[in-house]
């Protein structure tokens, strides 16, 4: 893995300053120790920090109203779709064991919906139009009603069109019926997201028309002459395969501002604490397209929960949080000072920033963005190959060999097939190999409680994650949802081992609705249970799932524009007496 500074940081920076998006420019310029010292007076942070808890709704009957609104991000007003007048949508606080009725009014002129991400409920309450229910018509109200059977940190968002990108997402916290196994003195919910002044349909169209539209960190001749990035030989080998190693994120900081609880890095959202307290941070990646690398300079993050499920505490310095994942971490700041929370986009084109501080108005240094990662051979699915023996042009013909993936339809949707993909759950996420400190690995996660079902799987299946960056087509097994004829069938209470094979050079956060699955990472009946799993570029992830929830469920990549391009299928779980032999 090699790295490089953004090559035209000056150009980039000027554009940013023009657009008054200063933090990104500042950090792109690199080497900036302190924001306040670097910025000209007119570009000082727009606030001394915002200390504002998320609006919270709770109880048996909860009213939510989806409507257009404007939001202020880093001093700039933009259009959004929010719930009850806020972005993120209000924190829904529930208690395990209660029943909840959520009355959702759609004040838009188009259909809308809410999907309760990670919640176990009857499939008709899952909120996916065309799969679980008809959707919520314009200017009508739909009531979701279901028992709350779990606890932990979850979230909710629109499953209609591209509304999620416009602000239609919010956090859910469910307190356990009994004592919380995770003790803390204080907690904060941290909703990470990405926000653009561009309409999401405009973003999608630009990606369709030019795959690398938002990538301003490509390899260049200037970079090559300066000795940066790949060598000439490597560039030729990658060029022969028509693969771009800088293709790490589709939509980048060139249009996104990265938000914490709806606030930009210059707004500086502040989470208060008293020195010596155990502070629980409930972190949710509610982004449309951004994988974040999150850390707090000077504090250990003790991971205690993943996707709402308690895990044995793991102390780490940094977490890669995929889209739609949640992690609860406990931090114990002992000093009477501010700490900066930084969540860098995986391609290092920008960051979300917040501050943990004993008092309002305090800030700490913001670390500069680290150099962006470059994809390597392993990211192309050559993990199991001897790199020394397979360099250069020798491998070209192997990049689309369907014999390695007999399940995959031979179509223009499939740009590459990983020739020898490997399980990458024991590795740090993309770009964190050389982080220099402890990064959370999937294999570090061990469930606190014994898994409810530890049977051996009845059968296995493989699903390939396929794509074409040039045409911006994404699919499972080379078939976009609009081309799929039948759902993926399961019998009720089957135990199935599913291996996801990433045939692309980009990580995909894969989400199965209505179920938790157990990652096969060597922890037996204490496997971590998740609703969303990141499949690293060119890698595989294997999980076991008990299909105990009858009905049709969505199964998709949680990158919004990948899903919109077709990377989704319907999974159906049928009662035993109905399901075919």
């Amino acid at each position, binding site marked *: 893995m090699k790295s490089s500074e953004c090559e035209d940081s000056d*150009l980039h920076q000027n554009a940013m300053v023009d657009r008054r998006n200063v933090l990104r420019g500042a950090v792109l310029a690199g080497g900036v120790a302190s924001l306040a010292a670097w910025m000209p007076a007119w570009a000082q942070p727009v606030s001394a920090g915002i200390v504002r808890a998320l609006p919270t709704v709770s109880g048996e009957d909860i009213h939510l109203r989806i409507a257009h609104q404007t939001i202020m991000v880093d001093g700039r007003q933009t259009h959004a779709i929010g719930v009850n007048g806020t972005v993120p949508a209000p924190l829904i606080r529930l208690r395990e064991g209660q029943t909840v009725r959520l009355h959702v009014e759609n004040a838009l002129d188009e259909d809308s919906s809410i999907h309760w991400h990670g919640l176990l409920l009857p499939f008709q309450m899952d909120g996916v139009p065309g799969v679980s229910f*008809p959707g919520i018509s314009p200017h009508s109200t739909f009531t979701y009603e279901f028992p709350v059977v779990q606890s932990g940190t979850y979230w909710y968002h629109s499953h209609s069109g591209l509304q999620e990108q416009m602000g239609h997402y919010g956090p859910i916290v469910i307190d356990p019926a009994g004592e919380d196994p995770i003790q803390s003195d204080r907690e904060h919910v941290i909703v990470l997201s990405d926000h653009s002044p561009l309409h999401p349909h405009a973003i999608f169209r630009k990606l369709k*028309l030019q795959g690398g539209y938002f990538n301003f960190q490509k390899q260049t001749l200037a970079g090559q002459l300066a000795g940066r990035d790949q060598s000439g030989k490597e560039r030729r080998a990658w060029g022969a395969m028509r693969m771009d190693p800088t293709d790490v994120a589709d939509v980048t900081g060139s249009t996104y501002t990265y938000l914490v609880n709806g606030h930009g890095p210059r707004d500086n959202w502040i989470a208060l604490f008293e020195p010596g307290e155990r502070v629980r941070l409930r972190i949710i990646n509610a982004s449309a397209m951004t994988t974040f690398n999150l850390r707090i300079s000077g504090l250990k993050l003790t991971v205690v929960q993943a996707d709402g499920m308690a895990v044995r505490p793991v102390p780490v310095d940094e977490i890669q949080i995929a889209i739609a994942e949640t992690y609860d971490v406990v931090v114990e700041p002992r000093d009477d000072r501010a700490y900066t929370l930084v969540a860098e986009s995986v391609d290092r084109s920008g960051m979300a920033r917040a501050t943990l501080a004993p008092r309002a108005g305090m800030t700490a240094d913001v670390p500069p963005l680290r150099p962006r990662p470059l994809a390597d051979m392993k990211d192309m699915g050559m993990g199991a190959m001897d790199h020394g023996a397979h360099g250069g042009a020798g491998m070209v013909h192997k990049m689309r060999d369907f014999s390695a993936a007999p399940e995959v339809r031979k179509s223009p949707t499939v740009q590459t097939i990983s020739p020898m993909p490997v399980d990458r759950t024991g590795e740090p996420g993309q770009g964190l190999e050389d982080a220099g400190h402890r990064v959370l690995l999937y294999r570090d996660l061990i469930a606190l409680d014994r898994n409810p079902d530890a049977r051996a799987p009845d059968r296995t299946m493989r699903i390939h994650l396929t794509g074409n960056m040039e045409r911006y087509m994404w699919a499972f097994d080379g078939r976009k949802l609009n081309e799929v004829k039948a759902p993926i*069938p399961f019998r009720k209470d089957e135990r199935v081992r599913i291996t996801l094979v990433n045939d692309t050079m980009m990580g995909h956060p894969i989400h199965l609705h209505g179920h938790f699955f157990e990652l096969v990472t060597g922890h037996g009946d204490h496997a971590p249970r998740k609703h969303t799993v990141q499949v690293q570029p060119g890698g595989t992830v294997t999980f076991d799932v008990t299909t105990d929830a009858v009905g049709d469920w969505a199964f998709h990549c949680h990158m919004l524009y990948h899903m919109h391009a077709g990377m989704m299928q319907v999974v159906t779980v049928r009662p035993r007496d109905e399901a075919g032999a």
Partner: protein
Amino acid sequence: MRGTFALVALAAFAFAQAAAAQDHPHEGHGIEAAAPTPAPTPGPQMAVDPDCPPEHAAMGHCVPKAMPAEPEPPAAGEVSAPAAPRANYADRIWGAEAMAASRAELKKHHGGGSSSQVMVDIAEVALRSGRETYRWDAEGWFGGDVDRLVVKTEGEGAFGDAFEGGEVQALYSRAIDPYFNLQAGLRQDIGPGPSRSFVSLGIEGLAPYWFDVEGQLFLSDRGDLLARLGGYYDLRITQRLVLQPRAEVNLAAQNMAPEGIGSGLVDAELGLRLRYEVVREVAPYLGISWERQFGRTARLTRARGDGTGGFTFVAGLRTWF
């Protein structure tokens, strides 16, 4: 002529590719019980004591507890998958009628959308033999990921003088592999001289090493066969400054005296354009272009007393929307 044959071969290859890209009805969802599942490889991280990670142990901060050996994941059975029903379970709750519209939307919003683009690759003025000339080369498309309607047009002329000529093509375009499209349709020449109509067959796409290439065959309403091969490469100097070398050759299978075309290699063009992408969609450029006619075509041109090529400096705007 050899170029023409090469093009014919290219087109044949393209058809073969298209045939190979057809659906394979026997392929399932990958739900085959016999599908080999790569066993997760045990990593060195598996037996780490979470209270004493290796880096701390290495620094002598702690001593890791002996961790139990990693349990092997239980082996999977080979029960076959159930038959796939229709994805209509929600009909039982909401009724088929209520679900129908949202189900259609689901497909449209997840891969079934269409898009369009107008790309003005060349819109430029040039100074040539003391005359100010203009030139365009543009295309527009509408459609989905695989099937598209494409309109291409190019032409040139001199300011304050006669329009020299151009063409419009209307093509059906089909993606035949991840990078290439097969395109077939009609070409109509416009401007002075005989205004010929052609049937057009071609292939265009992204070749290895990031070359954008195109090859077309044209069969006229009089049975004349022409061919055109072209390509360009975007050399990214910085994130926004791009040098684009491009080349094009035209070939004819026979003499076409009224059009001033002789058989064989008709003409060739090499260009070098340096553009600055203010935004991706808008890029002003400067460049040079070299054109030359060959063989009988050049003799016909000289007989008319016209020049057969040379250098021009160009300035223009590349734009798309």
